Structures are given as C-alpha cells and as structure tokens.
C-alpha cells in the first residue's frame, strides 16, 4: 500500500514541476505589460520602466522562475502585483468560498442524480426513463446563468428568502454564509446532476444484467431493496469517475455563476488576475489547481478501492 502511495506522490511531484514550467512559460509569452496596466494611461514610459524594475520583471527569465519555484517549495507564493498582498491570503479567502460551494453543488447534484438514475434504470425503455433522460438532456444544454437568474428573481427578489448574491464571510455566522451559497449551488448542481444522472443510469443498467442481482432476488429481497443494496454500489465506479471530473471543474470553472451571484470565488480571482496580467497570482493558482486535480484523482482512485474490494489487492 505504502509503495503505491509513494509512487503516486513522486509522479505528482514531477507533474507539479512540469506544470510550473508550462504555466511560467505561458505567462511570459502572454502579451500585455502588468506595469502599464497598473499605472494607466497618463503614466510616462520611464515610470512604467521604473515599476517593472521594482517588480523585478526585467530580471533574467531563469532567475525569476527559480525564485518563484523556490518560494513555492516553502509555500511562500509571493506577493500579488495588483493587490500587493501575499497571494496566500488572497487565495485563502477565495478557497473559503469556492470549495464549500463546489462541495454543496456536488452533494446536491448527487442527491438529485442518483435517485433519477436508479428510477430510469429500473424502468429502462419505458415512459419514465425516456422522460427523465429527456429532462437530463435539457439540463445539460440550458445555459446555467439563465437558470441562475430565474432562481434569483424567484427566491431573492420575490420571496426574499435568500440574499440575491454576495458572500458575508464565514465570520458572519455559518447559517448566514450558507444561505448565500444555496442559490449558486443549485444553479451549478443542475447541469452536473443531468450529466451524472445519465452516467448513473447506464452504469446501473449494465449491473442489473449481472447474475448476482438474480441471486439477490432469489433471496426474496424486493426489487427496490435489490436496486439500492446490491446494484447501486456496483455502479459506483463510473459515477465516482464523473464526480472527480466535476469537482475539479467546479473549483475554478464557475466564473459565470460567481459573477451572477457576485461571489468572491476562485474563478473570478483567476479571471481578474489573468486580465490584469497579475503573473504571480495566476501562476500560483494554476499550481494549486493542478495539485487539486492530482489530489482529487488520488482520492477517486482510493474511493474505487473502498467501493470495490477487488481493487484493494492491487494497491
């Protein structure tokens, strides 16, 4: 077990090094000058040059990379150009929004998708199944900002149950903070639930043809119990794969929802950092995202082993 873990960690480290080089090179090649962006139209050329020196942008490429990469090792991500604040603090605030939001959205999507998948699989080919899968189809294609705005006008403007947006911070009380994450999580959960539902259905249909389902029924278990106790767990592997992919996407791919609900999430920070050419922040966040994706994949692989004992032997 530990040998396997060690191997995965070494490979993860190599990947992170590869990612750091790639993102650093990309940021170097990207057009646009951070200093000019900060000083604006009226600043003179030499003022811009002065700022570039101050920010160390004119230092030789390799030196800057080593300095930045060295900092990463000691978890010192350096200071943001535009915010002039340590990147760690910036990112920590954003993670405090994006990670809970992603988890809630995933939980919602799973709670919706699994029962729909089970319902559809048990009525394969019949009316209920085609209806559910048709709805899932629409769920994928509906632009989620459209659905988000419907939610806002219904629950925030008309019913005033939840705030229209913004994030008061966990300091303002867990419930108040959670309340501001409910609508965005629902808006994110819809398309994900649609995709997850389809995958769960096809995985379940395959499992229902297996012999051990017949053995379970021969034991006298009603069909419903067989579905939930025996079939579902065997269909978890493809479902877990999709969940892993979705969690990685939900971390930083939700800029539209973050904008519509004006949430200080990771997605918006990356968007701002890229458009402001805040190199240090972009580079650090991409590294965090790569590390997150690697970690998520590791967790998904371990979850495979938890779900399916046959895979435990391999590790």
């Amino acid at each position, binding site marked *: 077990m530990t040998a396997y873990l060690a191997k995965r960690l070494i490979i993860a480290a190599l990947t992170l090094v590869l990612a750091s080089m790639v993102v650093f090179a990309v940021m170097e090649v990207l057009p646009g000058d951070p200093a000019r962006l900060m000083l604006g139209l009226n600043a003179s050329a030499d003022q811009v040059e002065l700022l570039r020196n101050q920010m160390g942008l004119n230092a030789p490429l390799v030196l800057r990379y080593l300095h930045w990469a060295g900092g990463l090792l000691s978890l010192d991500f350096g200071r943001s150009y535009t915010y002039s604040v340590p990147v760690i603090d910036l990112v920590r605030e954003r993670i405090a929004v994006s990670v809970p939001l992603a988890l809630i959205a995933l939980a919602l999507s799973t709670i919706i998708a699994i029962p729909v998948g089970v319902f559809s699989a048990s009525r394969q080919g019949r009316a209920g199944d085609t209806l559910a899968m*048709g709805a899932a189809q629409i769920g994928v*294609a509906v632009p989620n900002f*459209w659905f988000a705005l419907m939610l806002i006008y219904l629950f925030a403007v008309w019913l005033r149950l939840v705030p229209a947006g913004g994030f008061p911070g966990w300091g303002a009380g867990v419930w108040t903070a959670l309340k501001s994450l409910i609508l965005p999580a629902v808006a994110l959960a819809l398309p994900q639930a649609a995709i997850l539902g389809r995958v769960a259905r096809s995985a379940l249909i395959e499992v229902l043809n297996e012999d051990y389902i017949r053995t379970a029924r021969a034991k006298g278990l009603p069909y419903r119990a067989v579905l939930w106790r025996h079939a579902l767990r065997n269909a978890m592997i*493809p479902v877990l794969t999709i969940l892993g992919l979705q969690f990685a996407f939900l971390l930083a791919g939700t800029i539209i929802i973050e904008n519509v609900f004006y949430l200080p999430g990771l997605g918006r920070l990356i*968007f701002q950092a*890229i458009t402001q050419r805040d190199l240090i922040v*972009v580079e650090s966040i*991409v590294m965090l995202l790569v590390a997150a*994706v690697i970690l998520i994949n590791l967790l998904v692989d371990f979850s495979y082993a938890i779900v399916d004992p046959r895979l435990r032997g391999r590790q």
Partner: protein
Amino acid sequence: MTMRIDLPEETLAGVLAKAFGNRSFLIGLVITLLILAIALVSFVWTPYDVTRLVIADKAQAPSWAHWFGTDHFGRDILSMVVVGARNSIAVALVAVGIGMGIGVPLGALAAARGGLADEALMRVNDVVFAFPALLSAIMITAIFGPGAVNAIIAIGIFNIPVFARVARAGALAIWPREFILAARAAGKGMTRITVEHILPNIATLLLVQGTIQFALGILAEAGLSYVGLGAQPPMPSWGRMLFDAQTRMVIAPWMAIFPGMAIVITVLGLNLLGDGIADILDPKSRRRR
C-alpha cells in the same frame, strides 16, 4: 507491410434497413438535417439582413413582423439564430472532432501501454484539465490571432483531456476480454488490436460523451468572445447572442430564450442521432418495430 485495417464494414443495404427502422435515429436525423438545412439556406436568404442595425425597433417582443422579436440593436433574432447556427455548430462540431481525434488515441494508447506511459499521459492530462480555459484562449489569440477558426482550436483543447479519460476507461474494460487474447494469438500488435477491436467496442461510449461536449462547446464559444475568439460581429453566434442577452434578461427574455432553445433542440437532435447510431452499430440490436 501496409497496415490493412479490417473495420466492421456492414453492407450498405443492411445498415440502411436497420437505420430506418430505428426510431431515435430517425427523429435525430430529421432534427439535425432540419437545422443543417436552415443553416445552409441562411447563406442565401434570411428574413432580415443580420448586419443592418435598426435602432428604431430595438428590443421588440416576438410579433408577426419578427417571429422571435428583435435584439438590443433591433436585429431580427430569427435571422440571427439561423445565421448563428452555421458558426456555432461548425465551431462545436470541429472542436469535438479535435477533442476526439487527439484525446481518444491518447487514452487508448495509455490503456494499451499501461505502466509508466499510462501514468505520464494521465498526469499530463491532469495539467491540461486544470489549466484555466481563459488562459489557453488568450494564448491562442496571441499566437494564432482572433476569429472563429481559432475558437475551434481553443475549445478543441478543452475537449482533449475529457475524451482521453473516457477512452482510457473504456479501453481498460475491453483489454482483459478473451477475444483480445485470440487477436494476440493471431499475432496482431497493440495498435491494430486497438483500431480493430478496442475502438469499435467503445464507440458508443464516445458518441455519448461527444454529444455532451458538443453542448458544452457551444456554451464555451460565448465565453471566448471576451478575448476576441469566436465569430466576430456582424457574424452572430448562439454563444454570443446568449452573452449579450445575459444583461437584458428581464426586459427582453426572448433574446435568451430563442438561442437557448436552438441549442437545446440541436443537442437533443444530435443526442437522438447519437443514440440511434449507437444502436445501429450494435449488432445485437434487433430492428425495433
């Protein structure tokens, strides 16, 4: 020795007979052809000229004059949906093509080789997957310049990791099967086995993933217009019509409803077509009455 591939060819008559018996294939085909026909017609004629702005009749509700109403520049939304079909479908389809073209072989190779190659490929996949889409979009604009064609490259790149992962998972399930052992006993190498046995058996899987990525591709094209990728005005695209509608949802909801419906119908059509094709290719499917 030239590489002769024995792909599962069907006699044309057999396929057609089976195809036209298949309900989802038929519906899917009709919808897809309808949309393609509309898009082609738009080269020749559209109810109104999409390039002309008529500020006077700005943001009008659907009426007999403008079936789908007008947008914030007074342009006829029906004409824009029709013309926009060309660009959105082309971008999304080719992008799915790129994603499949590069992603599937990578995934299949990773599954076939296993060991270090598999691990390396999957980790590179992780990096590409974690890379913010906007960053690669700007890179592409910087290198290849703006425009619709380069949006295809950008969205294509987003699709590669997804198809690689799906193809790898599918292939891993097929490799241990006994008929693969038989193929190895017939002296076939890894590449030939992948092409002749692995790919046909995961085709259905890829088709389903393809239709999902198609829908996401159309929506992604909207996000790219921020950095200049995707169709430039006056050429409309569904993605950008939604992008513009975003700020005028309350006063002119039809600006978002009709392009949104166009996307849903196209995706629905393609899905049914995909499911239909998957059924037809699957030799076990009886011809459904």
